[in-house]
């Protein structure tokens, strides 16, 4: 799980944005639309990343349909210290997530 998390969050093209998504959802579960707004990303981009993260059992969904919210999976919450150290090394920390979105819109 640890190696998979590292790879999904830092080894792939969409990794940086996936790390931001996970950090944001950790604070409060949201749906794809709210996430796109919070992170200033395209809705389709967010949708794709959410699918990848669910596929890898990093996130789970609550509810269904358009309004379904996403939250960290039990497996990830169990190993949050691993996630924490990745996000820390990645430089995504609590305070930056919501304020840094303006300057970080690429990909």
């Amino acid at each position, binding site marked *: 799980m640890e190696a998979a998390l590292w790879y999904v969050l*830092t*080894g*792939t093209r969409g990794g940086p944005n996936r790390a931001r998504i996970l950090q944001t959802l950790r604070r409060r579960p949201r749906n794809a639309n709210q996430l796109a707004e919070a992170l200033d990303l395209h809705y389709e981009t967010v949708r794709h990343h959410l699918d990848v993260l669910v596929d890898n059992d990093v996130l789970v969904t609550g509810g269904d349909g358009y309004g379904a919210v996403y939250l960290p999976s039990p497996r990830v919450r169990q190993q949050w210290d691993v996630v924490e150290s990745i996000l820390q090394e*990645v430089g995504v920390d609590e305070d930056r997530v919501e304020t840094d979105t303006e300057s970080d819109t690429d990909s």
Partner: protein
Amino acid sequence: MSVLIDLMRVALGVNLVLLVGLLYVWVRNYLQFRSKHTFGLSLFGVFLLGENALALYFFAFHPVLSPWVADPTLVPRPAQIAMLVLRLLELVAIGVLLWTTWD
């Protein structure tokens, strides 16, 4: 029968292109994250790129080695097949890695 060697040269060229794609992702992530994991991936890509670049030079451009390797009296057909198969396997391996990374 240097068709086999020509195919091997093509595989080497394609490997280089695919590795540039991998390095584009990994080096960019390294520059952003500066983490040990992204550093390791970038280094891996750089060395594998170096290996393929050197092989392409030896087997396609080197004035002495390149004609030798394509000459069936010097490198018989079974050996040429073996060299080609190794490169094709490497091509598939790098291709799969790029497929999962370009996501």
